[in-house]
């Protein structure tokens, strides 16, 4: 039982938090700008490297240096949006999807040019886990990740349903032209989307980097499960994406728990596949996503 909690459940939740943080941004961008942002993983990577630079130069703890990474990631996406995405706004969104794929390449190669392609770590050496009653044995980082995601969930819900910007976002997501006719500044809404999406991605990137290491493919390797999470939650529904991220993280880790026999239920080398299988099955039976109705 404790083994289940220590090595399957909590890591699953932590992994899920990382996916969720990325997926929220993907989902929001999808809702507002109507395109699948393939560079989102690389925004995570940028956040991680921005933070890393702050750790190196200022000697801060990664979580304290996080704001630097956030600002860096947000500025990058805002710039990219202005230069590359905005001119394509009037076209079918598939163009922007493709553009974002190009941006992903650009981000990655810039990272490799600036920081090189070796792995880096925030903190050297093994992190001592938190041991409680000799039973619970979890990494502090995982507890932090889970705490962050809970905080984000509450803040996001409040933001989307209670604030003017939040509602404007949904209006733009429904019908951008009408939103402009109604006097909403769609570009402002778009900026807000990037700021939120970029910040959450940067946080996710740093968490992922803390959990393992930092390298140029850090975020790119996570993009598919994050998309799966966004889909699972019903695209364009950030709260759904959050839930979807947790589900994907859990499914990946729990699928190899020995549920029935002594053997892992599913061979761990199919871990990723379980997440996708889950997504495909869900799409077939509940194409509108996990959550019914509106949970934007």
């Amino acid at each position, binding site marked *: 039982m404790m083994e289940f909690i220590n090595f399957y459940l909590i890591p699953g939740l932590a992994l899920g938090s990382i996916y969720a943080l990325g997926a929220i941004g993907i989902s929001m961008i999808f809702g507002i700008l109507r395109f699948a942002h393939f560079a989102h993983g690389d925004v995570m990577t940028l956040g991680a490297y921005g933070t890393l630079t702050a750790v190196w130069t200022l000697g801060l703890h990664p979580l304290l240096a996080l704001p630097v990474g956030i600002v860096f990631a947000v500025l990058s996406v805002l710039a990219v949006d202005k230069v590359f995405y905005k001119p394509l706004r009037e*076209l079918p969104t598939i163009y922007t999807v493709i*553009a974002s794929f*190009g941006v992903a*390449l650009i981000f990655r*190669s810039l990272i490799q*040019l600036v920081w090189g392609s070796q792995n880096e770590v925030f903190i050297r050496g093994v992190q001592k886990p938190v041991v409680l009653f000799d039973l619970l044995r979890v990494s502090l980082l995982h507890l932090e990740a889970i705490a962050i995601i809970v905080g984000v969930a509450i803040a996001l819900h409040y933001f989307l349903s209670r604030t003017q910007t939040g509602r404007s976002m949904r209006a733009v997501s429904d019908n951008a032209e009408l939103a402009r006719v109604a006097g909403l500044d769609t570009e402002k809404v778009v900026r807000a989307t990037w700021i939120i999406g970029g910040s959450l991605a940067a946080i996710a990137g740093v968490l992922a980097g803390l959990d393992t290491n930092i390298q140029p493919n850090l975020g790119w390797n996570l993009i598919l499960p994050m998309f799966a999470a966004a889909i699972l939650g019903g695209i364009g529904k950030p709260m759904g994406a959050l839930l979807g991220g947790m589900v994907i993280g859990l499914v990946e880790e729990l699928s190899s728990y020995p549920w029935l026999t002594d053997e892992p239920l599913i061979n761990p080398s199919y871990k990723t*596949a379980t997440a*996708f*299988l889950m997504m495909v099955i869900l799409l077939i039976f509940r*194409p509108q996503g996990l959550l019914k109705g509106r949970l934007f």
Partner: protein
Amino acid sequence: MDPVGLLFFLVGFLIMAGIYAILCLALNVQWGYGGLFNAGIAGFFAVGAYTSALLTAAPAPTHLGGFELPVLVGIIAAAVTAGLTGWAVAKICIRLKSDYLAMASIGIAEILRMVIVNEDWLTNGSLGITNIPRPFDGLLQGREADILFLAFVWVIVAIVYLVCNRLYDSPWGRTLRAVRDNEDAARAVGKDVDSFRLQTFVIGAALMGVAGALSAHYFRFLSPEATEPLLITFLVWVMLMAGGSGNNKGAIIGALSVWAIWSLTEIVTNRLPAEFATRSSYIRMLLIGLLLQFVLQKYRSGLLPERSPGIAFDKDKDKTHG
């Protein structure tokens, strides 16, 4: 530079471009005509590649098959298995709206990729399949044999192009575009929307399988990274959008030009001064990324935009915009 070398470079370049052209035409059937957002191209490509490889390669204890069948049989079988896979995928998720279909197809392609990597008995897993023949093997030796293969690939490109064009310029194609534009209305005028989408998906998938088979024969070697989505799925999408979706000529032009961007940039970055030597590959990727952006913004609806095929007997068709 050595002219003979350049010739052979061109041969190699055009073989790859031809394979991409087929993928691009296939995607054009699915997306350009049918509006089906298939983001799992790599999956069908892989199914085709493995089918043909297993059927035509020399027998080996490490994987299934090795039947040494003729290459043409392999390619046809590749079309069939990829088409069948497409049929199965379509049966499951053809009703999904575009972006959901995209994700479902990425998901299924990923699952296929994992099966290929993990099921050693079938595919020899990550070690891959070697000794895959080419058509007309033995007729010519050395790199001259590439010229034959080039011809073979482009004959197939031509056939695929013809088929796609005929499909497009027919009531079938018209109805398909109608289904793409508005499903409800298509149903209301008596079109079996699911059946049309299914047909499109299967045709596209089968053609993708053919491209996969050709690549396996070209490399004479096949391993799971052949299903790398970056190189198969995304690049093909870029090609189609750059070339002009809904336009078969555009699909081929897109394949050629984007593949040129992809491939030729290296020749340029290799000429950077020595200080950049270690970084030239990153610079190249950066350059590719920027060039893609340029093409997307400069040629907004593709190099050759979609055009209605027109109605053969509609004489006064130029009297538009009354």
